[in-house]
């Protein structure tokens, strides 16, 4: 097979190090952040050592090269998600991307399609990461709009049975996650997009956990805005993406203001440049954008469908092995339908934090806690879970080590 985890791992230098007393690193925390291949690290280094200058500004060769590198990265990211370059905005993170839309809507004056006030509604879901929940709560507070939400069913799916009551003619925006960072659930978008557009609302997709793991074509999804973070997609830290449809980006007011996003400025007033510049105030995160471009190229060279297939197979294997463990409860879909490779679980009698600590002593990196989705934890009736999340550099051996680790932990903590 052309998909070789052994080969891929060689591209990721962190796997050369060991954990604790010489244990092999079994990294199962890509849901929090992914590891980086040399291609990405070197792209940043190359920018700093050869082409570093402020983009869009200088009349000199370095500035030209920096601009080419930066705009070239924008084109790569656009190609990666099936978008046009001018629809792709570089932010610092998905968190900023989502806040950007929420604050910019808050800046819209009446008459603008994004303007919100009392009587308007904002829709989210119970399975949102705080980054796609709190900004909308705050927007609701600032504007007087009402926040409503989809519930999560007991089998860890979005409850869409009451979709017509949740998304109403007063709904202006539906902000929803593509894949839950806790449950692994992949949400069906068609019905949501259809209903939202029917009532004239825009759909903002939190694609943090989907863009890194499966082929994404924004045109096919039908959503209006999409946000993701570079660092979860083998890209650098400090860079995120907001994609938006061109006509919407034209109408949306700006968020951060400052240099390079204006057409003219007087002491009391300013006018705005076209998107994407309108949303990129100041000297941008150039090296990180370039690194993200390299990440997109790397992922494309492996193949996003191949990565998705690999993760499906790995999830199959992992679910099968995990459900065999006594006292282990999967928090999320226990079948492999419409789900990503993020698997959360609890173990009776062992608190996730203690389990995580034990696994760490075996070289296994998992995440424990509420995973920045507190309302979801409450609705699933758990205080905390252990989460293993897989990526292109994980294989069945990693699953085996995890399973053994859990079993050893059960022995370790069961000793009294």
């Amino acid at each position: 097979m052309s998909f070789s985890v052994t080969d891929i791992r060689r591209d990721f230098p962190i796997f050369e190090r060991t954990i604790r007393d010489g244990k092999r690193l079994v990294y199962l925390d890509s849901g929090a952040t992914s590891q980086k291949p040399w291609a990405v690290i070197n792209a940043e280094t190359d920018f700093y050592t050869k082409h570093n200058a402020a983009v869009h500004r200088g009349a000199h060769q370095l500035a030209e090269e920096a601009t080419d590198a930066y705009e070239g990265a924008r084109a790569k990211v656009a190609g990666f998600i099936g978008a046009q370059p001018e629809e792709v905005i570089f932010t610092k993170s998905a968190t900023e991307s989502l806040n950007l839309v929420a604050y910019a809507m808050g800046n819209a004056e009446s008459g603008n399609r994004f303007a919100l006030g009392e009587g308007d509604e904002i829709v989210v879901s119970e399975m949102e990461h705080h980054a796609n929940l709190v900004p909308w709560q705050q927007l609701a507070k600032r504007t007087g709009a009402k926040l409503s939400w989809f519930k999560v069913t007991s089998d860890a799916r979005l409850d869409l049975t009451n979709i017509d009551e949740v998304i109403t003619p007063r709904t202006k925006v539906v902000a929803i996650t593509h894949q839950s960072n806790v449950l692994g659930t992949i949400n069906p978008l068609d019905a949501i997009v259809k209903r939202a557009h029917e009532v004239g609302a825009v759909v903002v997709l939190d694609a943090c956990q989907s863009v890194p793991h499966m082929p994404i074509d924004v045109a096919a999804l039908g959503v209006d805005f999409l946000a993701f973070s570079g660092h979860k997609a083998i890209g650098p830290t400090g860079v995120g993406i907001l994609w938006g449809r061109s006509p919407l980006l034209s109408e949306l007011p700006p968020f951060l203001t400052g240099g390079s996003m204006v057409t003219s400025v007087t002491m009391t007033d300013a006018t705005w440049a076209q998107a994407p510049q309108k949303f990129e105030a100041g000297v941008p995160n150039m090296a990180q954008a370039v690194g993200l471009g390299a990440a997109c190229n790397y992922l494309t060279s492996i193949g996003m469908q191949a990565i998705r297939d690999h993760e499906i197979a790995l999830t199959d294997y992992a679910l099968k092995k995990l459900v065999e463990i006594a006292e282990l409860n999967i928090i999320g879909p226990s079948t492999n339908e419409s789900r990503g490779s993020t698997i959360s679980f609890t173990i009776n009698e062992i608190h996730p934090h203690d389990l995580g600590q034990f696994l760490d002593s075996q070289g296994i990196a998992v995440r424990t806690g509420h995973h920045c989705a507190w309302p979801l934890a409450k609705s699933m009736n758990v205080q905390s879970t252990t989460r293993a999340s897989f990526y292109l550099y994980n294989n069945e051996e990693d699953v085996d080590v995890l399973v053994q680790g859990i079993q050893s932990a059960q022995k370790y903590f069961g000793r009294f």
Partner: protein
Amino acid sequence: MELDSLYQEVILDHYKHPQHKGLNPVFSAQVHHVNTSCGDEVTLNVTIKDRKITGISWDGQGCSISQASVSMLTDLLIDKTLEEAEVITHSFSELMASKGTSTGDADLLEDAVAFAGVSKFPSRVKCALLGWMAFKDAAVQSQGESK
């Protein structure tokens, strides 16, 4: 295994057999603290009379370190004066900040010296301190009220 220095037997024992757990409805101060990074939580009901801690009861959810630590705290602080409690609390905080360089003052901390190993795991220090921070808060509150 270094893990054993973290999960001392006495700690796991308190975790499985927590002392003074179950909230007493009578108290002079009630506090609820949450470790925001992991969601661990503890509620303390503290009764203080004439600067003496006559009772602590608690409830909570969390990892063995956070829960055992509250349990030991109750054993240590009940029937102490606020002044004595402050000395003990201070000593425990110092132990937690020692990054594995201290073994703790066994005269003051008794069984709680078992937490010395926690200080080597920076991300767990917060767990061990959860109940102690809550207690500090409760002490301040009940003093405020008695004035």
